[in-house]
């Protein structure tokens, strides 16, 4: 307990006085998390909509695959991508191993299943008559998709929150693909691992505190956005 207390006392000034390495890690972590979540959302939402709304063959298989990939261990994804990006492998010519770019790629791939599976589930949970009625009143595919996305926005926001959470806190794939290189392509989570392994507990605690605060701030912001629609409804209820 005394050790924890003394390490905490050493960690707090590190945050307050602005350790430049710590700030560069925070910056890179935010960059990776936001870019990976945005790219995964751009790619994943249309796929989720197609699985949730489409009537094509293989839709059930895709849904099962999307759900199953939620449970994939990140270390497995990291190892698979690492082999794929090795110089002699099919994607070796991209020269991504141990770069910053590969961290973006890895985190995007890990965030994608959350967006796909949770968007599909949110859309499938809509009242069936709503979308059928829209089609019968002449709505085209894009109009039906827009309606579904808007109506399922709370579920889709949950998907984005889950993806962002993964992109912020994932360690294994980042460490395998990027090499967890100090001061270069470390995220807050992988930097914590690095410091603990090196025995620098105060530094590890400082990073862990920052990561926790960052996750809380981002999740609170997204939760407010997610429930904005409900807030409007409550105001109308109280007015009637």
């Amino acid at each position, binding site marked *: 307990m005394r050790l924890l207390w003394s390490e905490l006392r050493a960690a707090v000034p590190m945050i307050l006085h602005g350790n430049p390495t710590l700030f560069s890690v925070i910056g890179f972590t935010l960059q990776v998390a936001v870019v990976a979540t945005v790219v995964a959302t751009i790619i994943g939402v249309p796929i989720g909509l197609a699985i949730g709304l489409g009537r094509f063959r293989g839709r059930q298989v895709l849904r099962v695959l999307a759900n199953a990939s939620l449970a994939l261990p990140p270390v497995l994804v990291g190892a698979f991508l690492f082999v794929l990006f090795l110089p002699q492998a099919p994607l070796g010519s991209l020269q991504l191993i141990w770069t910053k770019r590969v961290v973006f790629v890895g985190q995007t791939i890990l965030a994608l299943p959350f967006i796909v599976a949770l968007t599909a589930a949110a859309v499938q949970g809509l*009242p*069936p*008559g*709503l979308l*059928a*009625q*829209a*089609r*019968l*009143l*002449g*709505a*085209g595919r894009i*109009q039906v998709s827009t*309606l579904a996305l*808007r*109506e399922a926005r709370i579920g889709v926001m949950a998907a984005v929150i889950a993806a962002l959470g993964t992109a912020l806190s994932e360690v294994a794939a980042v460490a395998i693909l990027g090499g967890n290189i100090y001061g270069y392509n470390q995220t807050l989570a992988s930097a914590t691992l690095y410091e603990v392994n090196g025995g620098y507990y105060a530094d590890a605690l400082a990073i862990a505190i920052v990561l926790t605060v960052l996750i809380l701030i981002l999740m609170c912001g997204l939760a407010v956005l997610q429930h904005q*629609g409900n807030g*409007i*409804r409550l105001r*109308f*209820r109280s007015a*009637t």
Partner: protein
Amino acid sequence: MTAADPVESGSVLLRCEHLTVRRGKRDVVSDVSAELRAGEIVALLGPNGAGKSTLLDALAGALPAAEGRIERRGRVAVALQSPDLARRTVFANMTLALAWWGVPRPERSERAREALRAIGAEHLARRRAATLSGGERRRVHLARAIAVAPDVLLLDEPFAGLDAEVRANLLEDALSAMRSSDRATLVVVHDRAEAWALADRLLILIDGRLVAAGPPRELLERPPSTVVARFLGFDGSLEDGHELLLTRPAHVVLDPAGPLEARVTRAVALEDGVRLELELEHGRLYVVSPLPAPRPGDSVHVRIDGGARFPLADSPRPPHPAPRVPLTRREA
């Protein structure tokens, strides 16, 4: 037929010929031929599972015809049974539907307001869909289908699940809002009272087959078969010589001077009296009696004013030959 032709009142806007619709391997609708004309409101009536909604889906083009063909003139709009609205205001739901229908943006607000006014829902325009009651949701759902001004309007049980008072009010408003000289309207209804209130013509679907078509009064006075008569509420039956007489409660009158003697076997209290089941030598009748009413076990005399007669050959065979009995005058 093309959408460009001007619509004249009475012209056929939708026609199906020998239409069969399958769900899986089962024929849910079999060999149905019917047409809808501009200016008329037609009610599609039938018991649960008769295939009414399936027929409606096929007429709308949402389900393929397994056999037969459907001709449509102009655009068809459908209001499904479930009044699901988007999580927006009522007005936004209206303009959204108009956008789907392809109505130019400047016209949407006025048309939405007009339709809401027509159905008596103008005061709901700024309410959010989630705050509406069941009756209000149905009203908006109906307004949305009317707002798009289709050539053919298909409504699937638009008054389902409403209590009597709300339904009566909505029926009244809907009737004037739906009526248009250049539109054909088909309303699927489960309740006969709704069909009488709304329709110029009835289509009766039983077990996927169209068993009767015609004006409500005509069908009620001369049902074409015993099956149709039973469905239309002819629940009393009496063998009369070589004929079967089917009656509605309104055809049977408790009259001490009546020619037929019956025994009351059951009495069910109603709002305005008692519904009595009467057992006679050659059949069973039902009558609604004002209070005070005879009790089970009592003997009563009745006369019959009206009903529908069918040859016994068309009906299930009676267990014993029935003598000709005078129904409207007392035996000397």
